[in-house]
C-alpha cells in the first residue's frame, strides 16, 4: 500500500510531473531570448508563478481531501500520489518563478522559504510513511500496542500482588517505582524516546531517576542476598526481580513505539501550520505585486 503511493497507477503522476517540469524549464529558459533577464515579472515568470500558486492552493485542498475518507472523488491513494508529485512540481515552479533571486529577506522570499519548509517536511512525511510503519511493526512484533500495554498491566498486577506480600522496606521502593514509571511525556521526550521514570529511595527519601527500571532492579538485586526466607520473602523478591526485568523490556518496546508514532506525526506540526502561513504569504505576495504593479 505504501509503495503504491509513489507508483500509483503505473507512476501516472510521476510521468505528468516530469513532463510539466520539462515544460516549466522550457518556459524559464525562453526568458533568455529576451533582453530582460529572467525574473518573476516577465510573462514567463507570471505563467510559472500563477501555475505554482494554483498548484499550492490545489495541494492545500488535496490535503483536506486526503483526510476526508468518505469522499467518492477519486481514490485516496491516487490523491496522495498526486499530492506528493504536485509538491515536487510546485517546488520547481517556485524556484523558476523566483529566477533564483532569493538573497534578500522579504515577504516574497519568506513565502518561498515557507513553501520550502512545507515541501521538505512533506518529503520527510513521505519518507516516514514509507519506512516507519515497517520498523514500528517489527518493534511491536506484529501486535497492536494495546497487546503490549495489556502485558504491562498484567506484569504490574503481578508486581502489586507480590509487593503486597513483601514486608521488607524495599516494598515501598517497588511501589514507588511502579508509581514513578513514565510512559510518553513531553513532545521532545517522545521524539527522543527519553525515559523520565523515577522512584524514591527508602533510606533518605530521595527521588532518583529510574531510567529503564535500572534503579529498582539494582535495589532488588542488592536486597536479595540478605532476604529472610520466612513468609516467602526471598521468593517474592526473586520473582519481583524477574518481573521488573520483563517490565524493563516491555517499557522499552512501548517507548520505542511511542517514538515511532511521534516521528510519524511530527512533520505535520510543520507541514500544516506552514501551509497556512504559506497561503497568507502567497496572498500578501500577490497583493503587493498588484499594489506596486
Amino acid at each position: 500500500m505504501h509503495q503504491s503511493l509513489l507508483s500509483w497507477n503505473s507512476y501516472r503522476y510521476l510521468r505528468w510531473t516530469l513532463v510539466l517540469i520539462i515544460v516549466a524549464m522550457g518556459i524559464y529558459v525562453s526568458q533568455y531570448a529576451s533582453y530582460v533577464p529572467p525574473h518573476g515579472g516577465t510573462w514567463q515568470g507570471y505563467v510559472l508563478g500563477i501555475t505554482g500558486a494554483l498548484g499550492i492552493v490545489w495541494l492545500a485542498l488535496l490535503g483536506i481531501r486526503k483526510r476526508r475518507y468518505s469522499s467518492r472523488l477519486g481514490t485516496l491513494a491516487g490523491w496522495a500520489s498526486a499530492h506528493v508529485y504536485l509538491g515536487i512540481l510546485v517546488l520547481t515552479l517556485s524556484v523558476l518563478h523566483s529566477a533564483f533571486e532569493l538573497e534578500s529577506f522579504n515577504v516574497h522570499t519568506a513565502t518561498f522559504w515557507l513553501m520550502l519548509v512545507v515541501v521538505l517536511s512533506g518529503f520527510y512525511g513521505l519518507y516516514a510513511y514509507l519506512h516507519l510503519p515497517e520498523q514500528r511493526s517489527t518493534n511491536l512484533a506484529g501486535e497492536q500496542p494495546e497487546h503490549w500495554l495489556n502485558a504491562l498491566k498484567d506484569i504490574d498486577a503481578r508486581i502489586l500482588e507480590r509487593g503486597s506480600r513483601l514486608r521488607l522496606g524495599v516494598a515501598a521502593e517497588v511501589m514507588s517505582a511502579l508509581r514513578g514509571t513514565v510512559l510518553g511525556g513531553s513532545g521532545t521526550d517522545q521524539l527522543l524516546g527519553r525515559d523520565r521514570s523515577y522512584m524514591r529511595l527508602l533510606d533518605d527519601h530521595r527521588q532518583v531517576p529510574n531510567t529503564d527500571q535500572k534503579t529498582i532492579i539494582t535495589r532488588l538485586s542488592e536486597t536479595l542476598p540478605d532476604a529472610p526466607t520466612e513468609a516467602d520473602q526471598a521468593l517474592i523478591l526473586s520473582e519481583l526481580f524477574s518481573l521488573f526485568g520483563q517490565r524493563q523490556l516491555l517499557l522499552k518496546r512501548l517507548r520505542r513505539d511511542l517514538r515511532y508514532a511521534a516521528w510519524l506525526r511530527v512533520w505535520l506540526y510543520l507541514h500544516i501550520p506552514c501551509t497556512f502561513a504559506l497561503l497568507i504569504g502567497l496572498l500578501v505576495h500577490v497583493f503587493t505585486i498588484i499594489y506596486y504593479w
Partner: protein
Amino acid sequence: MRALVKAPWIEDSAGVELQTQTSVLLRTSDPAHAKLLPGIDFDLSVSLEDNASIVIKANRRTIHFAGKTRRRATLAQGEACSIGPYTVRIEANNHGADYRLVFDYAPIPAIDENARTSLSLAGWRASRWSVALIAIMAVLAFLTPFLSTLSSPAYTALPPKVQGLLPSRDAWSTGPVHEAHRAAGIGTECEACHSSPFTSIPDSACMTCHEKIREHVVLTASSHKAFTDTTCADCHTEHMEPSRLVTASAMLCVDCHRAPTSWQADMPVVTSFSTLGHPDFKVSLWHEDKNAVGAAAWEMVETTHSLGRPAKEQSSLSFPHDLHLDSDNVTLMNQGTPLDCSSCHRIDSQNGSIIPLDMPRDCGSCHRLTLDLDQPDLTLTHGSERVVIAELQSHFARKAAATGATNAERRVQQEIAHQFGSAGCGLCHEVREQPERPIDERWRVSPVRSPDSWYRSSLFDHRPHLTGPGINGQSVACLDCHAADTSSSANDVLMPVLETCLSCHNPARIESAGICLDCHVFHSHYGTPSIESRGAPVGHKMDSP
C-alpha cells in the same frame, strides 16, 4: 471508642488498635520507627477523634478526598479517600472495635489517564500552531508593512525602537533598490517611482529626475515606431538580484538589429561582436559640402573605417605623429626626454575618455607662440587671427615708441607675415593668404575639422585597457590600438578598427567578449529628448526626501 487500622503490612489480622486521641504513624522518613506502607513515600498518620471520625494527615498534599487533593481528611463511617495506590475507607468492625480503617490496594494503571503518550496528548496542536502562524504572518507580512506603506498614524506613532523591530514597507520590496537610486535618496521612497497604487510605473516618474535623457531614435525617423508603447520600465528593471538597472544582454540590441527591417532598411545588421556578426566601425568625420557656404558647408558624416578602407579626415591640421614619437627628432622641451602619448593626450579621470586637445595646454609648452626674441616670455593668444594681428601691432608699436625706431610699421608687417607663415601658424595649420585684402583680413587659418570624439555613439574607458592584461599578457599600450608611430599625416584616422578590438574581445576568449552596451550607448546624443516624446510633466520636480 476504638478503631482498628487494617493494612497489608500488618501481620496481625486484627490490625493496629487506635484509642481515642491517639494516633499511629504509618510512614516516616525514619523507617526504623514506622509502619511501612508500600507505595507511600511520605509521612502519613491516622488518629481517632472523639466524634468517631478518623483523621488522616499527610506531610504532603497527597490525600484525594471529596474531589480535592489535600493534606488532611476527616473520614466518617462509609466514607473513602485515596492515598497513593490505596483506597482508604471506614467500615463497621466485627472484630470488637467500633470501626475499621481499611487500606486497599488500588490498581495502578500502567499508563494513567494523564499519561502523555502522543504528541497531541503532550499538548502539540497543529491547529493552534496554524492559528498562531496565520496571525504572525497577517501582522508581520501584511499589517505592519501596509500601515507603513500608508504612513498610517497607527504605524508612525509607534516608538522608533518598536518600529525598528517590526517589518516596514521595505519588507514588501522584492529586492534591493539599485545603488544609483539609493544614492539619489529614493532608496526607501517607494512612491518616488510607484506614484499611485495598482498602476505600473509611469515614464513621468523616471523623467522627473532623468529629464535630460534622450531616446534611442529621432522622433521624426521611421524607426521611432519600433519604440512605440515602450516604457522606461520595460528595459530598466529595479529590485533585481544582483541589482542591475541596465540589462546586460546582447539581446537588448540584437532583437531588432539582427536583420534589416521594413521600417529602417539601412539599419546595420548585428548578430554578435565578431568579424561576420558586426559591421565595420564608422567614424564620425567633418565633411565639407562643396555646394553650401559657411558653417553650413560642414556636417558630421559617418564614414566606414576598416582595415581595407581606413578613413581619411580633412582636419586641415598638419601633424606628423611619427615625428613627435621619434626621439631622434623631437624630445620634451628639447631637453632629451622622448615624448610619449601622455605628453599631450590626457585621460579623463571621471570616465576614462580622452580629453579633447587644447593647444595652449597640450601643445603650448613646446610650441610657444613667442613673438619677440627680446622678450621670450611674451606669447600670442591662440585662436583668432585678428587678436594675433592686434597683439603684434600693439607690441611693436609700443617697442618702436620706447626705442625710437622709425621702421615700426614695416617691422610689424614682416612679423605678421612671419607668424602666419610656415614657422608660425602654418607649422600646424592650413593658412591661406589673400594679398588683396587689408592686413587684418589677409591671412585665414582654416578651422580644425577634427571631432572631439570619432566614435560618438560609443563609450570607451581607457583606464582598464591600460592596466588589464593584453594579448600577450602585457599591459596594453596606446600604440597597440592607435598606430600613431607610423602615421605621418594628420589626415590619418588613428582610431582602432573592428579587428583591433576583436584581437582581444573575440568569441575565442569568451570571458572578454562583451555585450553591445559595453561600447555602445542606447540613449544616444542624437535621439529626441525623451521628455518631448514621452510627454512627461516638464518642470515637475520631486520633493527631495
